[in-house]
């Protein structure tokens, strides 16, 4: 499986370039254009990273996070979720950039290849900011009755978090 995932990225890059060349696109110019967007995205994220890292580091260095993890582990053990993941699972549906910063912090603290780091990365990559999406899409149309659309969205979130934990533990 490791071999497959080593192959995925080079293969995808090659396919994109081959299709581009076949359709006579200026692949290099397009690439440079898009890369500029990458700079913008990262620096848009920068202030959020500062804010969240500051808070989480204070939470950790004060020892408060160990205290909270101990208290909450009774609940998380029910679902087999490591309590270190809990802050991420809570912020994930509310704030996209906030949860990204928390996931990054978890990966940095426990190591990107550790079990917990991998789970955090998977949760990060496997769903969107649920409440934000619902609010945005609901604001487009003038409906009063959401027909409880939030329920399947939350169930889906839980399913992907739990499957990440099961698969990686």
């Amino acid at each position: 499986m490791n071999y497959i995932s080593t192959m995925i990225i080079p293969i995808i890059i090659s396919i994109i370039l081959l299709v581009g060349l076949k359709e006579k696109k200026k692949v290099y110019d397009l690439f440079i254009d898009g890369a500029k967007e990458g700079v913008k995205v990262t620096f848009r994220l920068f202030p959020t990273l500062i804010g969240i890292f500051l808070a989480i580091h204070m939470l950790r260095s004060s020892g408060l996070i160990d205290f909270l993890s101990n208290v909450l582990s009774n609940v998380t053990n029910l679902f087999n979720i490591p309590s270190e993941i809990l802050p991420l699972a809570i912020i994930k549906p509310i704030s996209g950039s906030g949860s990204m910063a928390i996931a990054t912090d978890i990966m940095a603290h426990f190591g990107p290849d550790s079990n917990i780091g991998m789970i955090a990365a998977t949760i990060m990559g496997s769903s969107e900011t649920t409440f934000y999406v619902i609010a945005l899409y609901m604001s487009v149309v003038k409906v009063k009755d959401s027909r409880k659309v939030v329920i399947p969205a939350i169930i889906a979130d839980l399913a992907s978090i739990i499957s990440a934990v099961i698969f990686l533990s």
Partner: protein
Amino acid sequence: MLNYIWPLIILCSFIYAIISGNIENLNNSIFESLEEVITLSMTLVGTMCLWCGLMEIVKNTSIMDKMTRVLRPILVWLFPDAKNNEEAMENISMNTISNIFGLGNAATPAGIKAMESLDKSNMDKRKLSDSMMMLIVLNTTSIELIPTTVIAIRASLNALNPASIIIPIWISTIIGTLTGIISTKILIKRSKNR
């Protein structure tokens, strides 16, 4: 929301540090956290540029059109009451494909346009239509082929193989999306029977 959670975390940490005698650790961590963000961002920007560049090429080729044709039968099954609404179907497939390729900037405008065109064919304007519900749920779970940001962060933290996260993410996102689709279909059916 974060306007309350963020200060609460910081203030509680400060108080707890005083009680537990960790105040020196706390003080050091403030400056360490800033330093960590700087090093992280510098490496992150490289990988982000790589992916945004590649995706710009994808956007300009026929890859998107071909995907639309492959997705069509699936979308007809997911959005049965919109299948005669050509404008809506077009926007829905644009939205889905942009999500798959991680083109957030293209996915959201297409999704919003899809909502607008679905609204035109909505019988009861006070309620979300079935297709609107499905569209919203699909956008909350959002299948992404290459989770570029996560790979970029892992690379900047010196992971052994940054891309090895792809397979766990695929599995978890597919399970999440299928669960979302099934529970939406059940919810739609139940509200019809009432």
